[in-house]
């Protein structure tokens, strides 16, 4: 069995929680759940914002290490109405998880490694918005 752990940094009005530990083996499909928390009273745009001008939440991988894939699945967004928008906006707020699906490379060497990524987001509250920020995300893994 292999031991995976996930860790991430936080900045601005969004935090990434403690890593979820997952196990995998060569050739195995594994998922990593990235816990994210948005500060109370704030929201971030979902991965598919309601308007083109809004900056989406987006996780991208910068290095996969011995992993392959890394397809990201976002949770269902919330539709929330704010004073500054005519229609409800597609947002994430509170606590949620972003899931990344990997496959351990068939020729992955046994041992630990780290996949790294960036979570870009842009936060607002009911009447104020804050510049887009990026949180570093890292998935630590061990191939056995």
């Amino acid at each position, binding site marked *: 069995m292999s031991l995976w752990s996930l860790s991430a940094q936080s900045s*601005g009005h969004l935090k990434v929680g403690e890593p979820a530990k997952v196990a995998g083996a060569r050739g195995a499909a594994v998922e990593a759940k990235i816990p994210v928390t948005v500060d109370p009273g704030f929201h971030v745009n979902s991965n598919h914002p309601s308007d083109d*001008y*809004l*900056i989406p939440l987006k996780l991208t991988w910068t290095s996969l290490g011995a992993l392959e894939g890394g397809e990201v699945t976002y949770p269902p967004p919330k539709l929330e109405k*704010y*004073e*500054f*928008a005519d229609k409800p*906006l597609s947002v994430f707020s509170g606590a949620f998880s972003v899931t990344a699906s990997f496959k351990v490379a068939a020729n992955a060497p046994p041992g630990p490694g780290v996949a790294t990524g960036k979570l870009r987001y*842009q936060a*607002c*509250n009911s*009447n*104020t*918005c*804050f*510049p*887009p*920020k990026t949180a570093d995300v890292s998935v630590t893994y061990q191939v056995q």
Partner: protein
Amino acid sequence: MSAFHFSAVLSTALALGLFTAGCGGSVEVKAATLKPEKERKTAPDFALKDAAGKVVHLSDYRGKVVILDFWATWCGPCRIEIPWFMDLQRKNRDRGFEVLGVAMDDEGWEVVKPFLAELGVNYRVLIGDDLTAQMYGGVDALPTTFLIDKTGRIAAVHVGLASRKDFEDGVEQLLQAPATVASSGAGEPVVSLGAK
């Protein structure tokens, strides 16, 4: 421009006093949340480029009432206020009033110009930089809007989406006020938005 430094801007807005004096004039103006004249500090001068590449200084506008609006294209609340500012510009530009927008988009004119064209923005917009943002206390929260009196001093700060009436009343009050010379504040730090 990723280095806007976060500042507790609300504290400054809350720190501004209420101006309740009645102003004589033909238009009845409800007292706006303007800082008393003696407490106003000089707005920092800056040199930023407009869409035509011309360097614009805030000091070019001395003698006029100015709305200085820090905004960004990705900022929903900013998009609500901009049409208000367009109306104010249209109604008051012949009375010694100007709106100056300072766009804080990292992508600069590439995204700002299309936006201005789409909305038909009728006032001058500049591309902001970190230095200017720092001079104004960080300006991390958008919109952040300064009302500047005829002598170049900051009469009010609105952080976040404000009410249209607050802007209208504030501008009218400043337009009706005589352009008295500030007895203090020049050369001092204009605003300390950062509470940390």
